[in-house]
């Protein structure tokens, strides 16, 4: 797949110089952190000058094609719109790469999680961090933890709900033995008790049949089933965090990549300064119209 490389040769040189400057600054900044995160090769210096990227001074970021909203907008990661595109640019900036020092490439989801050489520095594609995958690839610190969301159809009485209290009187379903079911019982606590399904597929069918008024799934699943599976599917909103751990998305890197520690500290820094929370609010709640229900 062809990648879009925007900068011309002249701007690339300029960008390279700018990047070096940023890198020099960046090299000073996290000096106190390096004591804990020891990276033997470059002494913990996470700038374009020292990072062993696939191409010198360029960060190659991968995602799948097509990429869907709300993760990317218009299947174009270079516009920086959508949650994951925005996160990717934020991480790159944190590492010291200017926007035009970034190259995007397209790698299918299943190819990316296989062991073997990679054509990217890191891949952002809603990869859930789990131990089995971590045997074949590296993951950065999580940049997103899935929250629970209420999904319904346009004709359901739940479609008009704007608060959790309005959902109480309705029939709410979820899959058994999931954090979604915990969220139904603990956060919504429907008057008639939860409707418990064996699988999410059963729950979706019951929702389309009108047997339940709404179902609870995690937000990434909610985006998928409202966009691709349900006819007339609507996200009512996100449920406030119950403290139970949802799926965590991490940036995916080659196994034992020299970049993993640097990328992780960049993500950690973005979590700490609230950048990721702001991006989540912007792209997953406001733009995707999945407000947090009170």
């Amino acid at each position, binding site marked *: 797949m062809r990648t879009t490389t925007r900068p011309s040769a002249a701007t690339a040189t300029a960008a390279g110089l700018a990047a070096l400057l940023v890198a020099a600054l960046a090299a000073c900044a996290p000096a106190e952190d390096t004591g804990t995160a020891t990276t033997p090769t470059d002494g913990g210096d996470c700038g374009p000058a020292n990072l062993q990227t696939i191409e010198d001074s360029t960060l190659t970021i991968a995602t799948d094609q097509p990429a869907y909203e709300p993760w990317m907008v218009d299947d174009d990661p270079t516009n920086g719109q959508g949650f994951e595109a925005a996160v990717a640019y934020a991480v790159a900036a944190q590492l010291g790469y200017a926007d035009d020092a970034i190259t995007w490439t397209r790698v299918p989801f299943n190819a990316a999680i296989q062991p073997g050489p990679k054509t990217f520095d890191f891949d952002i594609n809603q990869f859930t961090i789990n131990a089995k995958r971590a045997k074949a690839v590296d993951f950065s610190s999580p940049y997103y933890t899935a929250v629970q969301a209420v999904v319904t159809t346009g004709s359901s009485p739940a479609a008009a709900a704007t608060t959790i209290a309005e959902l109480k009187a309705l029939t709410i379903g979820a899959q058994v*033995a999931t954090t979604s079911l915990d969220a139904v019982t603990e956060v919504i606590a429907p008057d008639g008790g939860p*409707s418990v*399904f064996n699988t999410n597929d059963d729950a979706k069918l019951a929702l389309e049949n009108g047997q339940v008024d709404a179902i609870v799934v995690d937000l990434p699943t909610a985006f998928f089933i409202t966009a691709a599976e349900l006819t007339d599917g609507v996200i009512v909103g996100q449920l406030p965090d119950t403290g139970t751990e949802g799926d965590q998305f991490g940036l995916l890197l080659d196994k034992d990549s020299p970049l993993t520690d640097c990328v992780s500290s960049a993500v950690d820094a973005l979590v700490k300064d609230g950048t990721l929370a702001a991006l989540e609010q912007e792209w997953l709640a406001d733009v995707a119209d999945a407000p947090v229900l009170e």
Partner: protein
Amino acid sequence: MSVLDAGPSTVELDRRAYRRSRARRSTLGALASTLVFALVAYLTITNAPGWPRVRTTFFDLDIARQSLRPVLAGLWVNLQVLVIGAVLVAVLGLGIALLRTLRGPIFAPLRIVATIYVDIFRGIPLIVVLYLVGFGVPALRLEGVPTSGFVLGTAAVVLTYSAYVAEVFRAGIESVHPSQVAAARSLGLSHRQTTRLVVLPQAVRTVTPPLLNDFVALQKDVGLISVLTVTDAVRASQIIVGQTFNFTPYVLAGLLFVLLAVPSARLADHLTVRALRRQQGGGR
């Protein structure tokens, strides 16, 4: 007085004493072998390398205490489905059996329909019937058709079990000797009267033990309606298992189902013995 009043002879008394001693010996033998077996089983299980883990995962008393209320609430749902279902199954099953045993060329369509019904619903696994009825019927979006998992689940269970029970009833009806029917007809009873007064009473008595067997099977299978969002004892346990990663609630639900099944099983035994005594008239 006569010899008859003198009581048992010494020979007979010896025989009785001998029988008593043999009976005592066999009771003691049975007791000893049961104790030895129980001891060996207990030691084998408790000395198994995984036993401590099994004990905490399957026999956690705290979790059993916590889950008792929700599981009992679920069992109450099971009981409701069971009672409603059993009545409907008996009525529908008997009706189908009567249709299948109708004689005469005119009734061929009824016999064929009844046969097809039995073939289909004895053939399809109950869980598939549950999915088809529970999610398929509401998908039609017909006015007035129920969407409740409880109603649709009970309907699915009744569909499947009435097919089984119809076959049991049919076997019972066909076990009544043709001479009984001939005798009834020659007395001037109509076909309907013959069936009601002569055939069915004998047929039902014959098939009561197998019917109770099906009833016990139904007791467990009503739990399958949990796939239609009915929170029964099994689903209630499953929810707690999902929260605690401890399987004790399943063991608890299993025990409660056993408690539910024991009375039916004893009743079935009792009826079988009584039927045997009547039919074989002191031959044993």
